[in-house]
């Protein structure tokens, strides 16, 4: 298989607080490949979004990437370790937009209400591609058209609050693609939208991916979306990937008890009507109160005993798949 555009190894993003260190992302590995979608899935608070921000280098204080590598293969073809770059360096800024872009949860809140969408799109274009105002505008219109915004040449002068939710998200995507990045991070892109719009947006993403060989990191808590969109999956629990692999394999044979639990919680047409969806016992602990051993052990239905509670299961796997669970060996 081709080598990844972005490969994250042992990423650690910690927040230093008076209450102690919060290990939001802790020893996270994953790879992103050209033209493929990596679905990052997990309950809220498991560190998905922090991971995304870490990759973009926009972690807010007092958060900090404290370890690991973020290897990015740039347009130019050379490979950079973003983790080694200072967040506010010009070099890093040159990555945001042209290399990696972000599509954000709430389309409304993600736009400033004080500028036209045109203004907010062209800004990035002019900054990175050094285009003239008119050229930038032309490109923006083109982008809007591409993401399926009707009458883009008129819409471009409108304000976000004048658009519908769906349109806003399209514009959001257009803005993300303004400097044609090769990696798009979509952080819960559809959460705030109604079902039909959701579908449209997902289609759009897929279409764009096909057109431009875009690599997408799709962050969601919704296994359904994963099933629909992703090629590969990374299941995150308390800041690390407990299981990764091609979506088909994982859906077919989930290896980690947590993955299974998640999958069980998807409603299916086959399920008997009026039956409660199985939920995962207990609630997700505070990342600061991370249990010893396998972090999932307290909630795990198949816990093996002290080994799970005392020692961290290593990542075991062959090929694209890997899992962190003693059920699959690796026990000392």
């Amino acid at each position, binding site marked *: 298989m081709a080598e990844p555009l972005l490969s994250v190894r042992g990423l650690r993003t910690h*927040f230093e*607080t*008076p*209450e*102690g260190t*919060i290990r939001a992302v802790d020893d996270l590995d994953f790879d992103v490949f050209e033209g493929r979608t990596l679905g990052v899935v997990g309950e809220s608070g498991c560190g998905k979004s922090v991971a995304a921000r870490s990759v973009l280098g926009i972690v807010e204080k*007092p958060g900090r990437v404290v370890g690991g590598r973020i290897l990015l293969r740039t347009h130019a073809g050379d490979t950079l370790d973003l983790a080694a770059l200072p967040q506010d360096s010009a070099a890093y800024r040159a990555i945001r937009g042209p290399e990696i872009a972000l599509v954000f949860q*709430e389309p*409304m*809140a993600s736009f400033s209400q004080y500028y036209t969408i045109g203004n907010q799109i062209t800004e990035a274009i002019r900054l990175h591609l050094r285009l003239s105002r008119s050229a930038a505008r032309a490109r923006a219109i083109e982008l809007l058209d591409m993401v399926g915004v009707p009458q883009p040449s008129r819409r471009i002068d409108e304000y976000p*609050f004048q658009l519908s939710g769906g349109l806003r998200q399209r514009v959001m995507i257009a803005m993300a693609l303004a400097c044609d990045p090769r990696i798009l991070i979509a952080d819960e892109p559809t959460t*705030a939208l109604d079902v039909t719009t959701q579908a449209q947006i997902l289609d759009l993403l897929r279409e764009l991916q096909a057109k431009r060989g875009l690599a997408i990191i799709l962050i969601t808590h919704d296994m359904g979306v994963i099933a629909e969109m992703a090629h590969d999956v990374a299941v995150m629990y308390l800041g690390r990937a407990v299981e990764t692999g091609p979506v088909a394999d994982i859906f077919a044979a989930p290896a980690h008890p947590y993955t299974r639990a998640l999958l069980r919680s998807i409603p299916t047409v086959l399920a008997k009507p009026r039956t409660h969806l199985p939920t995962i016992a207990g609630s997700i*602990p*505070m*990342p*600061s*109160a991370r249990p010893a051993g396998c972090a999932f052990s307290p909630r795990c239905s198949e816990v093996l005993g002290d080994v799970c509670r005392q020692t961290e299961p290593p990542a075991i796997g062959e090929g694209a798949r890997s899992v962190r669970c003693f059920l699959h060996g690796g026990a000392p």
Partner: protein
Amino acid sequence: MRLPFTRRKPAPSKAERYATATQLQLTWWRFCRHRLAVVSLIVLLLAYTAAIMADFLATTDPHQTNAATSYIEPQAIHWFDNGGFHPFVYGLKGARDMRTFKLSYKVDTSRKVYLDLFAHNYDYSLFGFRTDIHLFGLRNANRNDGIYILGTDQLGRDLWSRLAVATRVSLFIGLVGVSISLFLGVILGGVSAIYGGWIDILVQRMIEVVRSMPTIPLWLGLSAAMPSSWSVTQVYLAITIIISLLSWTDLARTVRGKFLSLREEDFVLAAELAGASQARIIFFHMLPSFTSHIIAAVSLALPAMIISETSLSFLGLGLRPPAISWGVLLQDAQNVQTLVLAPWLLTVAVPVIIVILAFNFLGDGLRDAADPYG
């Protein structure tokens, strides 16, 4: 440097308590980490206690005039006497130099006047009980002796005692006033935002008119209109109401503005979609999300209120002598002879500044603590 407090997630030990804590508790915990604010809170509590106990703290009758003690500068208390702890002050010999016409006081080291704790002095009632016990006073004092910690004014009245009483007046004016205007502000602001339409327009006009009036003339007119036969208390209340009538507008505007901006926000729409009642939306979804702003506004309104009382009494439009308030005391310093001959009368400004500072820090702390983004 270390942050005095932060909004980050809590320590493992506290994990569970936090998980189960109410918004209010969280706010309180966060507030407690805002050292400056906590200090301010304590300062204010002390100030208000002092205000309530004013007469107890006073060493002499704040109204008692005596030409022989006119313009005495702050006097030192000597703590130790022949080895032991016997706080005392020296007697003073005063005379007017008929060349310069200045009063001059000489310390009469031959005469020591000793201090007593819980000494007896003038009568007053505290929580309904009449007593003549004061925190401290003089034992073997003659008519002209006194513990002039802050000196005396032209009429020979002890500034410390007057300040104590003034503090009571000024602090409570602020408190009463702010509650009135807070009430007005939230109600009117809320109503105008929620119902909109002509109600909104009406309220907006009201606000605009009130705020377009330079307040001083309003004050002057109103205070001049007060029947001169009114007692000090009546004037006091009237003035409180007048202040608050002029200062509810900021709160109303804040509230209205926030309501309007929040109406746009998704979570309100969500709540509406979820079929929540309007009242529920307002009180459970909207109000909490901008308590911080209301608190900030109040934290500014309160000192502003105290200042306006002070300024207006200073101008002679608010409380007037023989009533005592910070403003009235500062009025004495309005002329050059006081500034030159008795500059210590300006010390009244110190508690004014401290209290207002404290209120602001407190408000700031509360604001940050109550902030929903925490």
